[in-house]
């Protein structure tokens, strides 16, 4: 399940909803990862653009991988502006056993950072500044830049 929200996430509500949705499904381990905007470099917050069609496909690929281990993944992300100390990201793994969950949450979050089609901007003085230096090229980038 992939959920997108405008602005900061209501983390306690999302955690409660997900936990209750799965509480009788016999998952022994539940591991959420929550990302919260840090107050640093004088930013007022961050802002996000998302390209949903590719995000959905990327997420479905992970859901399929999880299913092979009898696990499931849930994820929510913010669109637009999110202020400092608000949260913009939550992902969670439910699995029968703990090792699968501990390994999946790490792999999932790292691949999310490297591959999910989401662009981050610093919010400073009402301006939206693309965070190029903190961004990661998607694997295979540069294809159209090759001189021939």
């Amino acid at each position, binding site marked *: 399940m992939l959920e997108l929200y405008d602005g900061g996430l209501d983390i306690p509500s999302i955690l409660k909803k997900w936990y209750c949705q799965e509480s009788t499904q016999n998952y022994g381990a539940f591991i959420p990862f929550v*990302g919260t905007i840090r107050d640093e470099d004088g930013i007022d917050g961050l802002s*996000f*653009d*998302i*390209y949903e*069609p*590719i995000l959905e*496909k990327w997420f479905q690929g992970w859901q399929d991988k999880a299913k092979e281990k009898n696990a499931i993944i849930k994820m929510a*992300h913010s669109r637009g502006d999110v202020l400092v100390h608000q949260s*913009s*990201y939550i992902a969670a793994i439910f699995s029968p056993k703990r090792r699968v969950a501990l390994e999946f949450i790490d792999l999932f*979050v790292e691949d*999310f*950072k*490297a*591959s*999910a*089609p*989401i*662009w*981050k*901007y610093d919010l400073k003085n009402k301006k939206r500044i*693309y*965070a*190029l230096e*903190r*961004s*990661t*090229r*998607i*694997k*295979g*980038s*540069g*294809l*159209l*830049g*090759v*001189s*021939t």
Partner: protein
Amino acid sequence: MVKVEFLGPIQKESLNLKISNLQELATILQKTPEMTEWLANSAIAVNDTLVSSLDFALKDGDKVSMLPPVCGG
């Protein structure tokens, strides 16, 4: 016609081009100096699937997307 769209921070209007593969798109976009860095940085998707070869054939109605470096979370 093939629709070419520029995602996230790339400030560029979509294009509709008569091209039959990604090589032709590369040749066209490389003529625009302000695109140089984006071309070097960005991944390419055709109809929302990432592709890895310039030979990738395009047909009428296809959508090409350019994805610059990402940072979710």
